[in-house]
């Protein structure tokens, strides 16, 4: 399976490194001068291929969105149809009430199978993954399976939290956001929200 990481900022290179270590082929794309992205990739995610966003997405089975939320509007939606897409973005500064970035992502990337995850883990806490529990939310069973497998291979312990709308449970303001919660804590919190 080929992975495309969109974003060469704080988060993108970390996820790219984890995916490389798990044995995936990884392409990474960012905004700005491609030669700078290449330099960043060489040092922070050696082994990944720096390329354009369009090429990275076209070749990939799974796309990780690791760009600032305000840049999402500049992502070209056409190439995403049929792809599994991880939305690891957050509103920043945090929105007054969680709005669910993933619902907006799914609405814009028509035909993509969007799964919300990793947004609630600070980039400095991702590596090593060390079996850390991470929540994931989405609607398409096949995509959920693919993402759970991907997260597990990276070294996380993926915990389903429900449909894509439940992705809000992972956003800023949630007691799960930014904390090292256990699988049990994730499951208890999700149950509380459902009751």
């Amino acid at each position, binding site marked *: 399976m080929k992975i495309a990481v969109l974003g060469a900022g704080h988060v993108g290179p970390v996820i790219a490194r984890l995916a490389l270590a798990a044995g995936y082929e990884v392409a990474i794309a960012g905004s700005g001068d491609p030669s700078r992205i290449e330099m960043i990739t060489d040092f922070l995610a050696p082994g990944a291929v720096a390329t354009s966003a369009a090429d990275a997405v076209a070749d990939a089975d799974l796309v990780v969105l690791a760009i600032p939320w305000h840049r999402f509007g500049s992502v070209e939606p056409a190439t995403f149809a049929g792809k599994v897409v991880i939305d690891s973005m957050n509103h920043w500064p*945090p929105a007054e009430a969680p709005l669910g970035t993933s619902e907006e992502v799914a609405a814009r990337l028509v035909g993509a199978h969007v799964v919300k995850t990793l947004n609630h883990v600070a980039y*400095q806490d991702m590596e090593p993954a060390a079996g850390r529990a991470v929540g994931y939310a989405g609607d398409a069973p096949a995509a959920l399976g693919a993402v759970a497998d991907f997260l597990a291979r990276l070294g996380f312990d993926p915990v389903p939290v429900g449909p894509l709308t439940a992705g809000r449970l992972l956003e800023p303001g949630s007691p799960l956001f930014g*904390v090292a919660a256990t699988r049990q804590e994730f499951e208890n919190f999700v149950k509380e929200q459902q009751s």
Partner: protein
Amino acid sequence: MTTTFGLDTFGDVTHDADGTPLSHGQTIRDLVEQGVLADQVGLDFFGIGEHHTPDMPLSAADVVLAAIAARTSSIHLGSAVTVLSSDDPVRVYQRFSTLNAVSDGRAEIILGRGSSVDSFPLFGYDLADYEDLFEEKTHLFAELLKGGKITWEGKTRAALHEQDVVPHTEPFPTWIGVGGSPQSVVRAASYGFNLMLAIIGGHPGRFAPFSELYKHALEKFGHAPLPIGIHSPGHVAETDEQAREEFWPHYLDVIGRLGKTRGFATPTPESYAHEVGPHGALFVGSPETVAEKMARTMKKLDASRFDLKYGMGGLSHESLMRGIELYGTKVVPLVRDMLA
């Protein structure tokens, strides 16, 4: 590269012995005393980070730095950071070249995009533009540092035509503060600015690839090697236990509140124990503990400068003064020995 040691503060409001917050005026006057003490104990740098909130009222850091300059003779004085994205580069240059004049060549500046976002709405900027603002304003600032008449045009301020920006000054050390964005590392290298790594959480060692990226990028852009610095929060007291106990309630309070607006988690006793331990980013402890961690981190990141960000809202002025004294007289000599 010469090894240098500094202190940074965000100017948090200090409390008296009973825990009552002091006025903004008294906090700022105390800060001047802290800067003077930093000079007396032989430190190389004292920096003030721009903030615009009631618990961090240091919105005009350069004025405070000028007051410290008037009472000191050796220590370098600068920002940590100046939020350039929401300021006018011409005005920033004027303020710091004036500080350089007042201090007889002791000004430094650390430019940042701003993780503290309060200045954006205050001055009418949209946070969504912060990368573009920083990119363009850094470029203008670099042009201003070259001296001479400047002609410049951009989107973020009025154009300049053959403008003589005064006061004239010798170039002063300019750093870019980087919190974890590799693009900022490359940007610093492209301008030939020093690199200040702000390490405020997690394992400091994970920044080692950033140092390598910076050195490579400097070479690629045709610059000679330049200093790499580390900025990390901490607190020094006589013993580990005392330092940890003094710091914890204020750390919990400040980070807990900041987390609500910046999206990071409230600390727990477990997360605190991790951060003050060997793999965390808090330099809290006895002089020996802090020195050992500093030396190890500086070696790992090939850094020649370490700025301890001291102070946390609610600590007393007396406790901060004691920490500064220990840092200058005990910690820094120990680190110098360990690095020698």
